[in-house]
């Protein structure tokens, strides 16, 4: 099938296209030089913005804890439901939508690739079942390896290469995409009711520190040549004064960088940019973080924007969720995933009038605006921790328009308003920069070669938004920007039109991407014998039943990686 998108204002930062009026040709799901103009189906995009399909580097859309969150919160769903149509299936929202609704809602906004960032290896099968049921979008998942016993042991003994081989096996066995570290060391400590309080605090029973885990896995990541860097949720997340920990975490891998290539991704950075000694003296540490990131090239990060709404927080960071529970007194779920990780869920309402919540809202925007290079700071809400992903159009409006920020600033807690740095920031992002923080930058950080751009050979994942940048100024007409991004005029996935005017036209399956890590020499026998014995001793699941086989994925999209070990 051939498709021709005509006369749109194209924003394709990877190829340096900044709002030029041009045609995009698509053939067999890929972007091509040109197509037969008479035969191709044409889409008239004149007066509209054309961007690559959106990419989300960090959004909890599937897996054990997402599903527990759904069960925990019937009240989250009953006011926000979608009836089935001829093409789509029914489902519910709001902060933890069902799988089908997740796929449709992302597609409606023009997003086509989403990464689920926290998969306990033990629950990999569950995660992949849900990902397979999430329509339209392409997706992948990051296994949690920062508190994995084998990794801790290898690192303790300084066996980096053995650790790398083990991680390679794990990523392939869980069909994962990147190495995720959540509160490294802290989750293992949480199994014994403890936590680590700095990156040099030893992990009980293992005697190694979070610093060693972060550095070790960073080296492993390099040895395996994984496309993404290590994806780090820092220690001390959600505690006042934790910007120091975030800075230390970034500093501790500074020497591992070669050239300008990033080696660490600090995720939902807003939650680890808190200054102050306690909640009363709480303030923004965005400036310090931004200064560091502006001066260094080995880091990428994402925002973790807070939205003023009722949402559900869920992370693998059990101790942090316990703190949230004690703060809110809400119902909660806490879970210790055997030898691997932990998890917690707490419903949470971010309120405009709360000093802390309003400051958090401000911190994320300060980070996004103070970090000069948009390739380093990507847009997320850490869905659903900061707010549901359907709030992205609002964040885009805040980033593009000072007026939009001022409108919200007027309504927030006065103390938070007077301390916010936002009134002193004039920067307004252009569509070109928005295309970076929502797509191109995210795809680049993830190492996805065929996503996030519109060059020849890229996947034909395209979003078209009904906003004419020649006629309207986005900084003034921020409500029009919000409307345009809320309901994409067209979303094209794999060369097929799936959404038109915000309505889903077609149900299709997206692919699940995973890394097939190929080692220099196979070493499976030795690894298997040791692991089999350990699995027998410590796991509830047998070694033979543990790996996710490829036929488990509805649409499998392996990406081959050649490792250096």
């Amino acid at each position: 099938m051939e498709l021709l998108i005509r006369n749109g204002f194209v924003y394709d930062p990877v190829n340096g296209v900044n709002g030029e009026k041009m045609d995009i040709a698509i053939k067999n799901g890929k972007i091509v030089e040109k197509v037969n103009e008479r035969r191709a189906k044409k889409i008239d995009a004149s007066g509209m913005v054309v961007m690559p399909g959106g990419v989300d580097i960090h959004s909890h859309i599937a897996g054990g804890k997402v599903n527990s969150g759904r069960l925990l919160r019937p009240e989250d769903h009953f006011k926000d439901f979608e009836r089935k149509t001829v093409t789509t299936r029914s489902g519910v929202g709001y902060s933890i939508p069902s799988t089908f609704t997740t796929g449709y809602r992302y597609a409606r906004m023009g997003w086509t690739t989403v990464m689920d960032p926290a998969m306990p290896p033990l629950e990999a099968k569950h995660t992949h079942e849900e990902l397979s049921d999430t329509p339209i979008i392409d997706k992948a998942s990051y296994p949690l390896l920062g508190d994995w016993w084998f990794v801790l042991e290898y690192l303790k003994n300084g066996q980096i290469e053995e650790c790398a081989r083990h991680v390679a096996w794990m990523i392939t066995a869980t069909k994962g995409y990147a190495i995720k570290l959540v509160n490294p060391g802290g989750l293992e400590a949480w199994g014994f009711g403890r936590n680590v309080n700095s990156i040099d605090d030893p992990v009980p029973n293992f005697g190694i520190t979070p610093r060693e885990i972060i550095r070790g896995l960073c080296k492993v990541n390099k040895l395996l040549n994984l496309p993404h860097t290590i994806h780090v949720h820092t220690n001390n997340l959600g505690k006042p004064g934790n910007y120091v920990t975030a800075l230390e975490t970034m500093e501790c891998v500074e020497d591992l960088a070669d050239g300008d290539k990033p080696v660490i991704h600090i995720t939902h950075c807003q939650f680890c940019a808190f200054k102050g000694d306690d909640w009363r003296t709480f303030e923004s540490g965005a400036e310090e973080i931004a200064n560091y990131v502006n001066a260094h090239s080995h880091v990428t990060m994402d925002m973790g924007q807070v939205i003023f709404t009722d949402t559900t927080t869920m992370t693998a960071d059990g101790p942090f969720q316990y703190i949230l529970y004690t703060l809110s007194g809400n119902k909660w779920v806490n879970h210790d995933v055997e030898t691997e990780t932990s998890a917690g869920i707490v419903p949470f309402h971010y309120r405009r009038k709360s000093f802390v919540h309003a400051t958090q809202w401000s911190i994320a925007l300060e980070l996004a605006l103070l970090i000069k290079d948009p390739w380093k700071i990507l847009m997320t809400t850490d869905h659903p921790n900061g707010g549901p992903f359907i709030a992205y159009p609002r964040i885009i409006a805040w980033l593009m328009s000072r007026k939009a920020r001022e409108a919200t600033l007027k309504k927030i807690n006065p103390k938070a308003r007077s301390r916010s740095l936002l009134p002193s920031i004039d920067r307004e992002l252009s569509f070109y920069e928005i295309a970076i923080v929502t797509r191109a930058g995210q795809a680049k950080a993830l190492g996805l070669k065929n996503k996030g751009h519109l060059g020849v050979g890229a996947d034909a994942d395209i979003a078209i938004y009904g906003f004419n940048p020649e006629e309207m100024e986005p900084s003034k007409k921020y409500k029009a920007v919000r409307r345009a991004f809320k309901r994409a005029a067209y979303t094209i996935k794999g060369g097929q039109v799936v959404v038109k005017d915000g309505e889903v036209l077609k149900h299709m399956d997206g692919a699940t991407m995973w890394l097939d890590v190929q080692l220099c020499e196979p070493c499976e026998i030795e690894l298997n014998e040791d692991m089999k014995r350990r699995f027998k001793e410590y796991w509830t699941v047998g070694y033979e039943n543990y790996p996710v086989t490829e036929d488990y994925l509805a649409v499998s999209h392996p990406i081959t990686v050649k490792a250096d070990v």
Partner: protein
Amino acid sequence: MMVNLYPLKELKLPIVAECINPDIFQGKKPAEIEKLEVWEGNKQKKLGELFKAEIAETEDASENTVVVIHGDISRVKRIGAGMKNGEIIIKGDAGMHLGEEMKGGKIAVYGNVLGWAGSMMKGGTIEIHGNAGDYLGAPYRGSTEGMKGGKIIVHGNVGREAGAHMHKGIVKIYGCAGQFAGFRMHGGTIYVQKDCEARTGACMVEGTIVVSGRIESVMPSFTIEGVKKKVKIEEGEVVETPFYLFLGDLTENGRGKLYVAKDKNPHLSHYEKYL
């Protein structure tokens, strides 16, 4: 203005009709009212396909719209949801979620009502002359958004979890109440004139529950505070008989008050030795 609604057939499928609301009916002609949309099962229908609407101009020139429904509408959900003014009179049984999130006005039912009547109510009055189902005035499952105001009067019996998560307002039950009356209560008053099943006031933090009849048991997490000669339910309604006063629920550090009639509950007399 008075609007009479007559069901055209025996209603068998569940119907969601939040459009039956005096605020929406106000100033409309019968034909316009019949065009309002409802759901019957999984099909969208017009109200006119299920009900016949007639308007009778009332003599008193009060601006209130009165909606009178004649017949059994126990399959119809969400009647009067979110209403602010006016009155609904139901001469028959009514379905679930009656007066959900209502803010004002009045609903009177001369029959029985199913679950979640007055759920998340903020103001107004609901009077039920028959029995009420479970979750009277309670929020939807999982939610903590209980009653914030208004008044519910039930002349018959009610099911379980009446007044759960209540913050303000009053629930008066002149019959018996099921288990967990006043579950997780944060304020307001619940009065049960007759008997009450167990676990009354479980996890309550504040508020008042008065049981004039026999209570199956008082939870062990309640502590006895004293004996009172009479209890005031609301302005103009005082029950003059001795009551045990219990405080709880201690598992939640609560200071809620549970009054239980002394005469009807001799099985609680062993508490007196702690006074």
